[in-house]
């Protein structure tokens, strides 16, 4: 583990404890949702982090198509995998909020539906990767990664593009309570830190796997 990774791990761990203190000890209890509002910190931070993760996937997919370097493909797939984890968190924590706030686990409102479509598109990304041979896998998944990313702005601006429904519009009520805003920012930094650490870890595993495959094939060729 590199020195910078160690520092990032320690900083993220410290910030994680600080964020828990901020959530339960510093941030004011919001007057409408009361304690349930505290789900917001993780739910929205996870949503922002998934944008980042799929953004990284988008950038490295483009880079792969231009330069055709395997490392770009590995970074893209690693970011997509972690993005999918964060997207799952959003889709699972959202209904718990919804059940309390709107008295339903799910409704087919624009933001919810587009997030589910986004999740399905990246699930499709991995299905595609597992179904194709290695030479086609990288190329086609890069193309799908680019196409799937266009759903991210749709998710983000869904409440503007269509009727807002149950979801609040972007930035709603963010100016009202500074303690909530500050806490959310710290949680967001923690999530970005977690994303970076997981990305490094996943990328290293995938890179080693890829090198292993190359050496194994070479070994089989030489021995046969």
């Amino acid at each position, binding site marked *: *583990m590199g020195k910078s990774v160690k520092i990032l791990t320690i900083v993220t761990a410290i910030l994680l404890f600080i964020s828990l203190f901020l959530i339960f000890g510093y941030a004011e209890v919001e007057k409408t949702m009361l304690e349930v509002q505290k*789900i917001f910190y993780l739910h929205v931070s996870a949503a922002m982090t998934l944008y980042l993760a799929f953004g990284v996937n988008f950038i490295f997919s483009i880079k792969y198509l231009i330069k055709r370097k395997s490392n770009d493909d590995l970074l893209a797939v690693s970011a997509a995998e972690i993005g999918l984890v964060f997207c799952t968190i959003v889709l699972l*924590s959202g209904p718990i909020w919804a*059940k309390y706030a709107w008295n339903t686990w799910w409704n087919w409102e624009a933001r919810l539906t587009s997030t589910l479509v986004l999740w399905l598109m990246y699930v499709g990304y991995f299905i595609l990767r597992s179904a194709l041979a290695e030479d086609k896998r990288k190329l086609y998944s890069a193309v799908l990664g680019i196409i799937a990313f266009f759903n991210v702005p749709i998710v983000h601006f869904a409440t503007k593009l269509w009727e807002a429904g149950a979801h609040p519009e972007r930035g709603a009520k963010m100016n009202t309570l500074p303690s909530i805003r500050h806490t959310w920012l710290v949680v967001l930094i923690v999530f970005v830190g977690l994303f970076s650490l997981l990305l490094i870890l*996943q990328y290293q595993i995938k890179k080693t796997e890829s090198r292993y495959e190359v*050496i194994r094939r070479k*070994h089989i060729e030489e021995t046969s």
Partner: protein
Amino acid sequence: MRIVIIVSFLIVVGLVFLAIQVPTLDQKKIDTAIKEAVSKSQVTTEDEDTVRQAVTLSIEKLESAQQKRLKYLVSAYLVIWLVFMLYLVRLGKQQQALDQRLAQLEQETSDSGEETMIDSHESIDRTQSE
């Protein structure tokens, strides 16, 4: 990895414990508050009983509502923790499987006595440890 899982599990258990501990007003405090309020507003003894009943019912209702909210909160945090932990376990297993395959390859290469392969393998180890 194990440390992360254990520490985070303890945090989640702590959260669940906090969620169960809904702050409750003890009967003495309620009685004192009602007596004070009744004496200030100069109501009759019959009214005092009605006030007592109403206050007790309201407190019970508020506490049950708070318990319900805390259950939602803890469920959400528990779900998020579970997703992270499952992903971490998956990463751990992936790493473990890779280590086994590398060990197997090392065995195969040492059996066939190919020094060049060992060199390559060592370079993988180096990359992994970095």
